């Protein structure tokens, strides 16, 4: 057995897990509230990252500099880009999902229409930004790394872990302890009853998209920074793994998405370390997916209740 640097593996696993978890919570939130699989989530993840990049570099690659020579510090760019992502989420809802809500039996239609919007978003991104890889300029985040034991993790990656934890905690606080959060959970449970209770269900839907997409955008920003790579197809692999994560954790369950994310991240990292090859890493998510679908389809933390329409 190879000499494993456990601290390093743990740090790597936490980094990967945080990236997956942050992506997955938005994904699973929409499924929990609206019962649909938003396959455009990955496109917003990508657009959020590019938006932050544009704000930081002050330049839209392929077109030119921003008006007024605008250039923002990273933290401000991130907040703004998250807001933009959230708004894109609302646009997405208006384009792809809301028109279908009036129709009965449209579970696949919603998913397919989200695929359509994802294609459109990705095409536009490829047209607007240079198709080759972009990255945040060096120095966006101070260099250097955090060392724990024998392991070291660059600060940009530590940031992913911190961001994931902070945002997930904020989300949980929102969902559990605020009136808005209770309204969201009520709508997730039973939209008809929620409506009768006076909750503006459409507004909750819009807000859920805003929240989910803002988180997705954040995931893209921090991940893109950490791996020094943004490109219009960056959403594709993470989307499929994100699917595995939310099913693993139980669709609709936010804690499940977090658990699933970290489980996948750590499993991937460990398996690479133990087998000494990263060739099959990408397949692990799907092996886990198959296993959970066969053994416990409701997921680890899921209690997939039948939605009362």
């Amino acid at each position, binding site marked *: 057995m190879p000499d494993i640097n456990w601290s390093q593996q743990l740090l790597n696993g936490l980094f990967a897990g945080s990236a997956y978890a942050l992506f997955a919570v938005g994904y699973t939130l929409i499924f929990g509230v609206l*019962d649909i*699989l938003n396959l455009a989530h990955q496109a917003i993840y990508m657009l959020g990252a590019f938006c932050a990049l544009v704000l930081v570099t002050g330049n839209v690659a392929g077109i030119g500099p921003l008006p007024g020579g605008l250039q923002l510090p990273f933290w401000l760019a991130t907040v703004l880009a998250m807001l933009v992502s959230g708004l894109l989420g609302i646009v997405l809802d208006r*384009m*792809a999902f809301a*028109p*279908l809500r009036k*129709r009965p*039996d*449209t*579970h*696949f*239609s919603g*998913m*397919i*229409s989200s*695929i*359509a*919007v*994802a*294609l*459109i978003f*990705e*095409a*536009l991104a*490829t*047209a607007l930004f240079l*198709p080759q890889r972009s990255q945040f300029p060096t120095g966006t985040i101070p260099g250097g790394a955090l060392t724990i034991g024998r392991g070291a993790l660059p600060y940009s990656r530590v940031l992913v872990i911190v961001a994931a934890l902070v945002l997930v905690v904020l989300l949980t606080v929102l969902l559990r302890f605020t009136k808005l959060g209770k309204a969201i959970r009520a709508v997730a449970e039973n939209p008809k009853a929620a409506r009768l209770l006076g909750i503006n269900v459409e507004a909750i839907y819009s807000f859920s998209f805003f929240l989910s997409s803002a988180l997705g955008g954040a995931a893209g920003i921090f991940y893109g920074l950490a791996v020094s790579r943004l490109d219009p197809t960056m959403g*594709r692999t993470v*989307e*499929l793994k994100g*699917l*595995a994560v939310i*099913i693993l954790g139980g*669709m609709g369950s936010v804690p499940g998405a977090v658990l699933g994310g970290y489980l996948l991240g750590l499993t991937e990292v460990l398996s690479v370390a133990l087998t000494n090859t990263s*060739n*099959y890493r*990408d*397949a692990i*998510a*799907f*092996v886990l*997916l*198959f296993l959970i*679908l*066969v053994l416990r*389809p*409701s997921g680890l933390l899921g209690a*997939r*209740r*039948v*939605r009362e329409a």
Partner: protein
Amino acid sequence: MIGESTRQLMAINALLALSIYLTLACGQLSLANAAFMGIGAYLGTVLTLNAGWPFWATILAAIIVPMAVAALVGWPSLRLRGVFLAIATLGLGEVLRVVIVNLKLTGGAEGISSISVKTQDWQLALALAVALYLTWRLRGSRMGYAFEAIREDETVARTMGINTTRYKLIAFVLGAALAGLAGVLKAHLFRTIAPGDYGFVQAVDILTFAVVGGSASFLGPVLGAFLLTILPELLRSNLLRGVANLQAGWQTLLLNGIILLLVILFLPNGLISLFTRQWRRPIPLASEQAPSEAT
């Protein structure tokens, strides 16, 4: 007017469209056909190039092996409802991609190029004819009725004596056969294959043929395939005359996305519904939420 390679691609895409039609016909949204196509393409290529098999034998293998994989994978997966099956089948494509990328035999990430051209037009025509015949005879047959029942309401179908798992598996396996056939024919026509050709993008393309064309009739996906194959070609010839530094890639993506969105929103039964007075519902129902069957 329509170039030869475009016509050939139309035939191949029609085959792929029919492969997904079979699973849609019994209410299953399977996105595995791109992966089965990949298996057919890679297996066929390896057999022709490395093992020197005669083409007819390669074609047979490219049909049979995906069928076997489908039977194996389908058995546990087809218990899954709706969306979950779609995801599981996507996962299959990913696993396949990883396997292909890592085998030296399959040329790794770069794929294989300069495959000898073996596919002839008559073979394409025959393959398409067989597929069309198969799907045409389905409507009105006992199995066809069973498919429709499963598609409409699987639980009720079971209480009527229909062994739903068996029929879903048959559809899945037959679809895999057509997809594998399309894969091997295409590989020996357009001469290159790469792992990226059989993943999510291709799966979505195939789905788009069926959605845009409409899956109420077997002609729908064929129509969708023809249309979506011709359009980018027309676009390519007009657009590239102008702006030189824009890549042709994103326009196709954009076009596909817009067409798909418009169809889903405004013509959900697909283009075929403009021609027939069918009011059959095309998109598979997924009224149940739970990932797996309740008994």
